[in-house]
């Protein structure tokens, strides 16, 4: 049996008919056709699927689509402003915080939540926060640099690209 879910996705009102077991990530990818949010595992370990639900980072593979009724959802596609990269996105590019790019949307969404809660995180805080985001390519060092730089840039109101 299908149920209709209505929510906002990157600021737009959307709705989809989903099964009671449909995961939020599947609704986003399959029904709402935004494929920037990725699926890297089936045990909630990898964090490739992180989106923001009502302002907080959530692994969208570990939440049912039905639970998103009325929620505000932001995905990687909703982070930039009118085509201008968000400072955190720019920092990932500037600091080579990505290689294959598969983990990147989840990393960025997770990092944004960290900075929201801790505007000036140090290396250790960043590494601990990113425990739930696996990257197999970068060895994390450049991701940590990117998050630090992105946070700095955000503190400066997005004026510094690095």
């Amino acid at each position, binding site marked *: 049996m299908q149920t209709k879910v209505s929510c906002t996705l990157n600021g737009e009102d959307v709705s989809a008919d989903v099964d009671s077991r449909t995961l939020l990530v599947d609704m986003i990818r399959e029904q709402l056709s935004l494929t920037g949010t990725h699926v890297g595992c089936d*045990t909630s370990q990898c964090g490739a699927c992180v989106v923001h639900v009502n302002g907080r980072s959530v692994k969208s593979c570990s939440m049912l689509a039905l639970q998103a009724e009325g929620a505000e959802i932001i995905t990687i596609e909703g982070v930039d402003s009118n085509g201008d990269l968000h400072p955190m996105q720019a920092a990932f*590019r500037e600091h080579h915080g990505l*290689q294959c790019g598969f983990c990147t*949307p989840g990393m960025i969404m997770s990092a944004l939540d960290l900075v929201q809660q801790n505007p000036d995180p140090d290396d250790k805080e960043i590494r601990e926060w990113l425990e739930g985001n*696996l990257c197999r390519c*970068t060895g994390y060092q450049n991701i940590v640099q990117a998050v630090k730089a992105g946070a700095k840039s955000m503190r400066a109101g997005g004026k510094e690209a690095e």
Partner: protein
Amino acid sequence: MTKNGMGASVRRKEDYRFITGSGQYTDDINRPNQVYAYIVRSPVAHAHIRDLDISAAVATPGVVAVLTGADMAADEVGSLPCGWGINNKDGSPMFEPGHPPLAADTVHHVGDQIAVVIATSRAIAKDAAELVEVDYDELPVVAGLEAASADGAALVWPDAPGNVCFDWEIGDKAATDAAFEQATRVASIDVVNNRLIANAMEPRSAIGEYDSGKDEYTLYTTSQNPHVIRLLMGAFVLGIPEHKLRVIAPDVGGGFGSKIFHYAEEAIMTWASRKLKRPVKWTAERSESFISDAHGRDHISHAELAMDDDGMFLGLRVSTRANLGAYLSTFGPSVPTYLHATLLAGTYKTPAIYAEVKGMFTNTVPVDAYRGAGRPEASYLLERLVDRAAKVAGLDPIEIRRRNFIKPEDFPYQTPVALEYDTGDYEAAVEKALELSDYDNFESRKNASAERGKLRGIGISTYIEACGIAPSNVAGALGARAGLYEAGTVRVNPTGSVTVLTGSHSHGQGHETTFAQLVTEALGVDFDAVEIVHGDTGKVPFGMGTYGSRSAAVGGVALVNALEKIRTKAKKIAAHLLEASADDVEFKDGQLTVVGTDRSVGFGDVAMSAYVPHNYPLDELEPGLEETAFYDPKNFTFPAGCHICEVEIDPDTGVVQVVRFTAADDFGRVINPMIVEGQVHGGLTQGIGQALYENCVYDESGQLLSGSLMDYCLPKADNVPDFAVTTNVTPCTHNVLGVKGCGEAGAIGAPPAVINAVVNALAEFGIDDMPIPATPERVWQAIQAAK
């Protein structure tokens, strides 16, 4: 140096799409009228299929088809081929079992494919797969090397006695035995190289699509080498000629070797798409990846090193058993042989070496190349053994290495195990690493750790590896069933922008950037006016793909050779336009100038006149400006380096933390230092993963105990330190770029450095061995046993 040219840390072209979520990975692609496949896999490790009942699944609403091995046999679908044959000591060929994409009547490992359920949604396909009833007659299982080699062991293949696929050797046995007779000191070691799973973050995926109007197939797949898949699947499995089969590997989320091979699912989706006349899509769930992606490593070795009184190496004897899994994966047999035993000379001038390798079948997932592929196994064994040898000889681990290094004046150096190293300076890398790691002050850091109740240890490795496997004729003589060249096409468009079609494939390496740098360097065109196309057999003329750190050393050189052809033709065109001789035309920074004059024409104008040949030497030159080069290297390249690791161990918990890690690597010339450093970081992290965290474990019945990311521990952000990375450049002598390759070095050099550091930290307990991975439990147990 051209801005954005060779040697510049240019920011990556490809990043924009990835940071904005607009990358196109295979699972992001949906085709009109697409249906979804779910694969029924064996839950047991070895069994005859007595009965297979698909009726309930077929009857499920939404199910479009359920296909089995019998359907494949009826369509005469072939066996998944092995791309490298190994000969036994007596010259006879290895045993090659068949590998049907869907099992015919017997399953040989947990995860073996039995049937495919295809439905209008993923969920329906998965539900219906539960309804497929399989009746198994279970057979005895051998789930690991020890079980497979035991007396009277059950057989994975009745025609492979002793579960031996091949029994192979390399080197001079008599000379090595003689070296041991002369020796006054001998060091020996037994090592297990732990089985690993690549776990690229993007799970494998495939979409088969059939166009009945044109009788053409398209396969979208997570591959590192789409042309190789087209050849293997088209020619050997499905009987589709190249011109009717297009293979597209779009954005691919990491590979590390695991996406080189031709997998059953690619053939199943392509075949099914024709039967159903609908696109068929399959994407692995992560736990499915664990039981269907090829695994890596899994060796058991015994090695002995003969020395004289001064600790000079006289001879090395190695005996290895390598687990190949139940079937031969595409390049499985080459990994423990030509990619492992040929590297056993390491960076040392050991005059006599003999190695024998038994490739063995077990009821486990096939084993094949994983980042480093054979070379990590060789360097782990050798660098652990050399540390042992230092103890036996009473020498410092660095001193014994120095004494035995191949010296700069020895190059080219012919090893006793087939390879000829072209160049290197191992001592210089050690010097750089010692300085960067602040080696001299280790004792004070150790004391500081001790004050905090921690044990600190330091370890070194001076590894070597071989990249860009070549030349094709030599590889062919050694059993390769493919060529090992690369192709590149440079298409200069009429307005002077450049499209490059490369057979290399990027799944994170950043070719769209580095290859564009090579174009900018050669033609002086703007970096943004260059587009690199890869991963599509419908666009790229030919290619062998990316593995074995070959992209720059083989694909990059092919590109540079094609660029040189463009330069030559451009000069001729310019000579005509400038009414001069081509010999007098200089091509620099995008301008073609008659030497010693101010007569000059821009490259863009040359391009335009090639396509609008009104004022053009049509008698001598064809119009157009497009060139292709195939490049078959003369030799491997030999990156090498020195890695120094420092660990801190908590004696109460056994937890090992890597606190400092220094790498001084020789990759030859570097195109983009930022990207090279990134590759090193990633490789080191996988190497630390192997040393401390990752372990693929089967139980006796062949069940995979480490079958999910909950049980198989990938390194996380707080498991690794900031790395101190530098390079020590000796340019490769046999390619025009002077490049060697950097993708695998970290995974090759790090594991022995980490374990040597762990053993060093535990020396005070008299511990001189530590199985890999050095998990907290193992370390804690070792400390308790020693107390």
